[in-house]
């Protein structure tokens, strides 16, 4: 079971890596802001799996904090991108 969970975490991380390749490249700010969203969800999933699979149960807390801060950062990015539009860039 632990190996399966670890493998699942690795798979999720691989999907995040593939997604990052795309959106970090994508033209426009909105694409890049999605990187924070993708990492928030995928990273949280990987951390929850790791919490169960390895002997680090506090990883679930890290997942919680990751989800919260990813949301905060996404909002900050959206505000930052909006301000640049308003500035007439």
């Amino acid at each position, binding site marked *: 079971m632990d*190996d399966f969970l*670890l*493998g699942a*975490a*690795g798979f999720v*991380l*691989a999907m*995040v*890596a593939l997604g*990052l390749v795309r959106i*970090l490249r994508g033209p426009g*700010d909105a694409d*890049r*802001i999605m*990187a*924070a969203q993708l*990492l*928030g969800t995928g*990273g949280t999933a*990987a*951390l929850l799996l*790791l919490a169960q699979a*390895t*002997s*680090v149960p*506090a*990883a679930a*807390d*890290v997942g*919680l*904090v*990751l989800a*919260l*801060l*990813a*949301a*905060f*950062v996404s*909002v*900050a*990015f*959206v*505000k*930052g*991108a909006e*301000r*640049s539009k308003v*500035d007439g*860039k």
Partner: protein
Amino acid sequence: MTLAMAFDIGLALLVVGVATWTIVAHNTFAAVVGFVAYGLLLALVWVRLAAPDVALTEAALGSGLTGGLLLGASTRLRRTETSEDAAELPAGALRLTAVGLCTLVAAGLSALVLLLPVPAATLAPQAMASIAATGLGNPVTAVLMAYRAIDTLLEVVVLLLALVGIWSLAPDRVWDSLPGPRHHADSEGFLTFIAQLLVPVGILVGIHIFWVGSDAPGGEFQGATILAAMWVLAMMAGLVDAPPVSRRWLRLVLVVGPAVFFAIGLAGFAMAGGFLAYPESHAKMLIVAIEMPVTLSIAAALALLVAGPPERAPGR
């Protein structure tokens, strides 16, 4: 090659890839996004190294809050980088030298880590042995608040000094006014909704992470960072406005943490014979008594750091 090793190698490659992308990104905004992504991945690395306290700090402070800070800086710099970008890049030789030096430093650090004796010299057993005297269950908190409490006190003071440094960037005429631009509350908008949803949840999570720090991974820095992020979120959504930096209550909140810390430190002379020494029977109570105002002060300082220097008069 076990599964765990394959996972770790994949994670390491991903971290290096994102770091490289961050450095070669075309504009500052993209680089900040890359930096935040890199920080979130580093939190995963710390979890794999069985250091959840550091992972919490990295996710909250190193990635989230610092990302907000860098974003504010990048927004302020946007006006200066709109045109003539290509002409402003440093010369090729300079960049090559920078790459070479960074590679040397990275190689040197890797060599040092790989050459450490196995098992590496560590004070962890002694730290764990004395932990019962402090009344704490989390050795990291014991190190931060008992064995090396003076370092933590100085860290908090350094945060305040950084804040004073940022405030000193304000022009004289707006010295006593509000930091940052006014964010207008969009009363039916999504931003208001997400803030009204997230901020109470975040405050609960922040208090929870702070409180469990005594016996499980967590602690005052991580909890304070979450609280600070929630305050900044409320400001960004226009739910609350930034307070003018001259307000007395604001300055009191900022100072109460290190003041209580220092006072209990001085009382340590009377109680246990040294600065920041705790009598064994009351150690945990004193530590919690220090942690609560310190968390408040750190949260306020971090939020104000992200808010920036004062730049507009009240009522505008």
